[in-house]
């Protein structure tokens, strides 16, 4: 188990490093550097910067040094919590992002839990009652879930809600709580609003996991030990749940590892459609305005938090999956 844990941790570190390099590339990609953009920004306001001042700024920000050194400087600042200043908002990036990052994670994690809670029982049911009406309904819903991209689903729900119920289904808070400081009331309000976006996000992953769970459990149910268990007169529920389900969980668990990044990804687009106060809309604004420090920070934090989230979901699954827990001990 320790080996497994160490391996997971090492991989998470490497992933974080890869994300930081990619983020740096994104920040550096637009033509010109931060100082050029800053000067252009000032020029719009009517003031100008002399060539010497620009050179001084470049020296101060280390922009005259080689790219690798710049990356090192930037990483150093990031690790000490200094993410730079947003050009668009003229405020520190962390202040601009605020709660949005946590709300993104909350929505994605809710979607992850929902995926598991829905997919597991339906998958088991579909396999145990193969070719029953319920199985067909689950399979059909699964295919539809696979085929509708989640932002389209969000759009369709928005339209239906607006057209037939006359209400706006978007947002994570009712207006009176939107600007309010955190309180139990606001938290409760969030809990009321979170199921819909979470469900929209969870649909595709649920469809996939149902299919995986059904296929694995079907393979398992055909094995002789299940027949033996039945022959010995164990009740059907016990015969299915006691061993076959646990054995079928392994591929279910390993595919879950890629579910969280996928959900975080999806939440960006869905947030835009549903108007959720997550980092999605902010990231789009920042990218359109070429506010690269803000955009880069969002990509970086989102990536790192996703890696941590995946790690947590791995640990959760390790807890239910003895074969991973006992790896390397035998």
């Amino acid at each position, binding site marked *: 188990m320790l080996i497994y844990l160490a391996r997971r941790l090492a991989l998470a570190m490497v992933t974080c490093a890869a994300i930081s390099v990619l983020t740096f590339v*994104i920040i550096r990609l637009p033509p010109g550097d931060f100082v050029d953009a800053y000067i252009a920004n000032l020029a719009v306001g009517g003031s100008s910067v002399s060539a010497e001042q620009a050179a001084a700024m470049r020296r101060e920000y280390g922009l005259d040094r080689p790219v690798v050194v710049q990356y090192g400087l930037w990483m150093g600042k990031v690790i000490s919590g200094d993410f730079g200043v947003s050009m668009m908002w003229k405020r520190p990036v962390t202040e601009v992002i605020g709660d949005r990052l946590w709300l993104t994670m909350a929505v994605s994690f809710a979607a992850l839990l929902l995926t598991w809670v829905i997919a597991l029982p339906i998958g088991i049911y579909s396999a145990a009652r193969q070719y029953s009406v319920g199985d067909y309904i689950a399979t059909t819903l699964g295919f539809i879930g696979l085929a509708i991209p989640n932002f389209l689903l969000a759009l369709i729900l928005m339209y239906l809600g607006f057209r037939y119920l006359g209400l706006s289904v978007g947002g994570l808070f009712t207006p009176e709580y939107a600007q309010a400081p955190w309180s139990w009331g606001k938290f409760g309000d969030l809990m009321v609003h979170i199921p819909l976006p979470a469900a929209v996000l969870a649909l595709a992953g649920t469809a996939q996991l149902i299919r995986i769970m059904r296929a694995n459990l079907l393979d398992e149910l055909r094995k002789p030990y299940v027949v033996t268990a039945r022959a010995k007169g164990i009740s059907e529920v016990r015969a299915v749940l006691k061993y076959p389900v646990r054995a079928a969980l392994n591929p279910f668990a390993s595919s879950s590892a890629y579910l969280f990044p996928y959900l975080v990804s999806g939440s960006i687009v869905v947030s835009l459609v549903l108007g959720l106060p997550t980092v999605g809309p902010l990231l789009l604004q920042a990218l359109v305005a070429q506010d690269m420090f803000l955009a880069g920070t969002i990509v970086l934090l989102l990536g790192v938090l996703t890696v941590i989230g995946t790690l947590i979901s791995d640990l959760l699954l390790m807890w239910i999956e003895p074969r991973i827990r006992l790896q390397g001990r035998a």
Partner: protein
Amino acid sequence: MTAIGLTDDRLAQATQLQLTWWRFRRHRLAVISLVIVALFYLGAVFADFLAVADPHATDARRSFIPPQGISLFDDGAFRPHVSGLKGVRDPKTFKLVYTPDPSRKLPVVLFAHGYPYLLFGLIPTDRHLLGIEGGQGVDGIFLLGTDQLGRDLFSRLVVATRISLSIGLAGVAFSLMLGILLGGVSGLYGGAVDTLIQRVIEVVRSIPTIPLWMGLAAALPNTWSVTQVYFAITLIISLVSWTELARVTRGRFLALREEDFVIAAELSGAGQMRIILRHMLPSFASHIIAATSLALPVMIVSETSLSFLGLGLRPPAISWGILLQDAQNVQVLAGAPWLLSAAVPVILVILAFNFLGDGIRDAADPYG
């Protein structure tokens, strides 16, 4: 095997390809999906011919005209026609609104003259499948209505098929190259190289893709032409999706490496390239095809999402994502729900490719 219902003679003589095809044919949904996919690509090739109006032509007077079907019969006789449009002044806003006028019947004709275009990009012509005779002013065929700028949605949808479907193919071609190369190397040599490539795949898969794509796509210079952006977007999308193909290729290589016929070929002194191309490739080509057809819908959705966000292809390029961008606003959507019609081909194509891929995978598996 007997389920295919053939005599043993034919079964014994059949080639691998024939066997696969027979098994595939039994999978009814997959066959239907194959037809749907083929029709879509055919539609993409003949997009301009199928379009009823210039997809780029704007006309403020035609703004938000609702969909209008073609009436097939007139007084009991087969005479396909559409109604002409009549301008009515809105009593509240004093705006001129165009509504169908059933008293004016405009006959629909086949192979009508319309806007000029190049068929297959080569032959200049102005023939279109459908057109109307004697139309004046804003009259036209509005199968799916028009958008805010008065562009015909059906024509735009048909022309968008070209970009949306070809970006999938181009992207898959890129990731196929990467996937087969890295997956093949990984499976063939094993050891440290394999471990390294596997770790790279795990890292790539645990990065949330959309924020990354958004960042990369937004960094494309504004001055780039439509074609340059098109290829850049294809590259960005395939940067992530090669991992699945690499995984499949590696799995097949690992499985086949131990097979008797490969060892026999090795012992007979066949070169490595010959073993791979001559002996191994035929037995895993179908798996690659299946993985490819499952990768295509992912590409199409990726492009649609990026363009929907306004970070993918840019107008005047037309893709399904760009069409859906117009439907982003609920207020607009409530007034003109037909703007959502671009969702239909997206869902249809994704479903068809998924069933097709499943069908090929089942058919290619000799133990299935």
